């Protein structure tokens, strides 16, 4: 079964504009579902698959599926957060790309718009985390 969130993480790790910000290889700060509890975690990305499903015909699955994916960008400044968020958009909001080993037809923003904000600084620190959440819908090829 295709893990489209993992495939997106694999794809983002191939983008030099992304790895220049979040690191590369096994040290890349792109996480599924939630941020790791660790120091020096920012800037980072969190990938969450929140919806979608296979395209079904009367004969069963047709070989394509959709996914709704939240991409969260975290950074220690609003400008760094914006840069990371926009870099992800430039990397994935397109047609026909291969994420990992999965062929995608198109990935586009939606069904909801982007929102952003910041978390209050925690005790003992003046540093707060700035975040942006962008939602994308992607269609991809699957035999599942």
């Amino acid at each position: 079964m295709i893990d489209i969130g993992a495939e997106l993480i694999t794809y983002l790790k191939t983008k030099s504009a992304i790895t220049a910000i979040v690191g590369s290889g096994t040290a890349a700060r792109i996480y599924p579902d939630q941020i790791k509890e660790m120091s020096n975690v920012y800037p980072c990305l969190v990938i969450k698959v929140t919806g979608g499903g296979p395209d079904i015909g009367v004969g069963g699955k047709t070989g394509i599926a959709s996914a709704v994916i939240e991409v969260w960008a975290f950074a220690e400044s609003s400008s760094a957060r914006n840069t990371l968020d926009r870099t992800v958009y430039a990397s994935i909001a397109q047609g026909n790309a291969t994420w990992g080993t999965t062929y995608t037809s198109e990935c586009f923003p939606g069904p909801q718009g982007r929102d952003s904000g910041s978390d209050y600084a925690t005790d003992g620190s003046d540093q707060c985390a700035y975040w942006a959440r962008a939602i994308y819908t992607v269609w991809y090829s699957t035999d599942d």
Partner: protein
Amino acid sequence: MAVTAKPDTGHGMTLTLATTNWTGKIIGMPTNLDKQRARVQTTHLGSTTNHSYMPGDLDELGELEFDVRFEAATGLPATGSAPETITVTWPLAPGGGGATGASLAGTGFITGITYPPMQTGVLQIGKIKISYDGGTGPTWTAEA
């Protein structure tokens, strides 16, 4: 390499006009080619149970409609005079392994253009209507 049949969205479709110098931003194609073959009734006094039919001799070709993200620097093409080759090219279906998109190609002409309605806060959307003239094609070529 054999192409695997895969469903796909419409994103990535292109329109090519061989002679008319116009390349605009198409945002949708609400009406693709509609081809109808009339039926000719062959019922006679000896017919039983159902009316009987035979196919007519010729196909009726419907018009194609395109919605255009109107740009004042580009405008819309002129309505047609001499027929030209008009090609609608499909995007490559994800995971199908094709290299050349499917297409509908034939000679035709522009039958209508509609300049966009103007409203505060609303992007301008124009329309183009095209008809194949039945001279050459239109011919469907599958993805390969």
